[in-house]
């Protein structure tokens, strides 16, 4: 039996939260931070964690996880997905509603919330915008909001009908919830499998054009201008969409946007071998778009890095590209994939100083913000997650080694599905400790549940 420590002293780490970057020790007791200052004295009843050389951050918040339960437990369960989340440094996940049944009524909300009871991290469910995610009639959002649902999305598809989308935005505005849109015009997407571009052209595979995303982003920006409602854009994948989000923000519209690690790290050239693991929606785009997403990332256009963790069991991926399922897993690797790519970019910018400096405080804070307090605000859970590391706040904390380089191997994947695109990618930054509401769930990189 592991002793049930209730008091932890995190010593010598670099704290990063919305206040800034600083050196301080943290004392945790009964689920809360009770002290945050340099040089806290050791006591016998404290379990000490040596965080020298490590970064102590608010716990990560993922806005976009497909946990597959209920309905497709062969691919993932709330428990297996949560474990992957803890290994990735997450203390809270927003679970997408495209389960079976769809999370589109108060009854289903109550059912799935019971399923998530006892999960090792905090699960917040998103509800569907339309019944059955069919894009036609709105769900009972206010009843679901009463049960704690803050985010509504038909993710997997976008709301195709502009009038339905307008009504959803107006309705959401009245009840203090946020609509999140998967931007994809299905007619333009034309049942394609990968990005339409040089690669799809060579392979003879039906492509999904950038315009399938861009036209819906443009349309929905105008609907926000019309209604004044808040809107969150899921998984922006094109440079053009990112530019439109930027413009809408400078117009002062209440719009937020997320980007996924895979759209930042990978491009459609990965598909040259027809490997269905890289089939994802929105598709991996051209390198031009990938670089455009980094420009937006650096320019503060994005409000969150979100995984779009989409587990698929072997049979639904072990087939031809056109028949394979869309999606890849990402909870365990998201932070390290982005930090790894950030390092490669910095190395390229300073070729004479390869891996010399690491990240500046500003860069580190920016990166952490996209995994913590910014997504927490979008999910409207900022009182519980992504909080400042000061006395009185809930102890949702992630500690990572920002310099650790590692490779993902198949046996380390705790998801029920193994469809990770990162087995051949250098990952940088290893999560070593995760506290969920003051309980240590990850210790020295090992789950302790």
């Amino acid at each position, binding site marked *: 039996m592991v002793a049930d420590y209730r008091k932890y002293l995190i010593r010598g780490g670099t704290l990063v939260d919305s206040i800034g970057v600083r050196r301080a020790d943290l004392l945790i007791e009964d689920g809360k931070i009770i002290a945050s200052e340099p040089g806290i004295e050791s006591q016998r009843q404290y379990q000490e964690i040596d965080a020298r050389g490590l970064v102590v951050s608010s716990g990560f918040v993922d806005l976009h996880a497909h946990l597959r339960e209920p309905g497709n437990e062969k691919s993932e369960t709330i428990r297996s997905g949560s474990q992957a989340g803890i290994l990735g440094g997450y203390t809270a996940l927003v679970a997408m509603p495209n389960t079976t049944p769809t999370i589109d009524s108060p009854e289903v909300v109550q059912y799935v919330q019971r399923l998530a009871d006892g999960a090792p991290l905090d699960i917040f469910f998103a509800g569907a915008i339309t019944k059955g995610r069919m894009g036609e009639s709105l769900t009972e959002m206010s009843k679901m909001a009463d049960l704690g649902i803050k985010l509504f999305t038909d993710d997997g598809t976008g709301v195709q009908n502009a009038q339905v989308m307008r009504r959803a935005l107006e309705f959401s505005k009245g009840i203090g919830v946020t609509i999140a849109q998967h931007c994809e015009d299905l007619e333009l997407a034309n049942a394609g499998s990968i990005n*339409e571009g040089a690669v799809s052209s060579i392979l003879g595979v039906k492509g999904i054009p950038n315009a399938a995303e861009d036209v819906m982003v443009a349309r929905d920006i105008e609907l926000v201008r019309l209604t004044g409602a808040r809107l969150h854009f899921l998984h922006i994948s094109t440079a053009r969409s990112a530019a439109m989000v930027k413009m809408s923000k400078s117009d002062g519209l209440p719009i937020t946007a997320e980007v996924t690690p895979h759209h930042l790290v990978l491009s459609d050239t990965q598909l040259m071998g027809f490997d269905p693991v890289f089939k994802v929606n929105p598709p991996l785009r051209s390198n031009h778009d990938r670089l455009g997403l980094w420009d937006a990332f650096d320019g503060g256009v994005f409000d969150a890095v979100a995984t779009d963790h989409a587990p698929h069991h072997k*049979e639904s991926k*072990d*087939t*031809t590209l056109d028949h394979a399922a869309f999606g890849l897993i990402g909870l365990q690797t998201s932070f390290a994939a982005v930090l790894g790519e950030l390092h490669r970019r910095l190395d390229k910018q300073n070729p004479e100083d390869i891996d010399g400096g690491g990240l500046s405080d500003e860069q580190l804070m920016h990166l952490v913000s996209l995994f913590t307090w910014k997504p927490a605000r979008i999910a409207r859970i900022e009182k519980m997650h992504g909080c400042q590391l000061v006395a009185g706040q809930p102890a949702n904390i992630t500690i990572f080694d920002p310099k650790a380089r590692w490779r993902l191997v198949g046996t380390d994947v705790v998801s029920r599905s193994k469809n990770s695109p990162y087995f051949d990618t250098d990952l940088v930054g290893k999560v070593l400790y995760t506290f969920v509401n003051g309980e240590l769930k990850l210790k020295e990189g090992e789950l302790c549940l």
Partner: protein
Amino acid sequence: MHRSLVSISDLTDEEVTELIDLSKVFREVNSREIPKVPALRGKTVATLFFENSTRTRLSFELAATRLSADVLTFTLGSSSVSKGESLRDTAETIESLGADLIIMRHSSSGAVGLVGSWLDIPLVNAGDGAHEHPTQALLDAFTLMDQFETGPRLDGINVAIVGDVLHSRVARSNVQLMSRLGAKITLVGPPVLLPLDLSLWPVKVSHSLDEVLAGSDVLYLLRIQSERFSESLVPSLSEFAKSFSLNMERLAKAKKETVVMHPGPMIRGVEITGEVADSPQSLVRKQVENGVSVRMAVLYWLLGAGQERLEPIW
């Protein structure tokens, strides 16, 4: 370590020449009174066609038969095997039955390479979706080398590939092989039937057949693949034919030495008129004839049989 032929890019320039040379050997075999050699006696070749085909399957089966291989024929409607699991099961079953090589066609791009990654025997791609059809490109190159007496190359030959390039695996294999052999290629078709991004293709593009007629040594017509249209890409076949059908009037504007090719099956009256298909400038029947020799060469090459077994069978 077995070899497969999935894409033209699987072959080095030397290997292309080797296959062309072997094709000549087998064309000689095919001209004999008894056109059969014991080269692959005792070998079993399976044809696994998930998509309807007559000419390609018959061509391969005839090639295998003339090499004295035993032939297993599987024809399956693509609808019954649209799931990956059954694709894998079907392919593994054929391997377990003892096939030494599988000739496969499938409606999905990449399907043949995928099956190849599951099996320990060679595969020949007889067409995967809109991806590739490498033996068609080899037989077309073989036919053109003969026609223009350019040796093992196609240097300086101007080829116009006309029509539905977007859905054409023949175009994708031919562009690769012909350009590697030195030919200059122009894709001709309405924008809606050409891939949007051709930046990786070593080709020029034209939207007017009339403009390229005079400058082309080869007019290579593609069948308009209306069965692959899940959306209406052209308003009607006659709307397409108005600008892109090769008729006698258009052919008259080309050089007298210009030849006409088509991978078949032809839709007479759409991309090509009957008069053109049957004209002396048409190489269509030569393509079919050469197809058997080239496929014999490919099967023989992949199954690594000994040269000595090419003696006459009688």
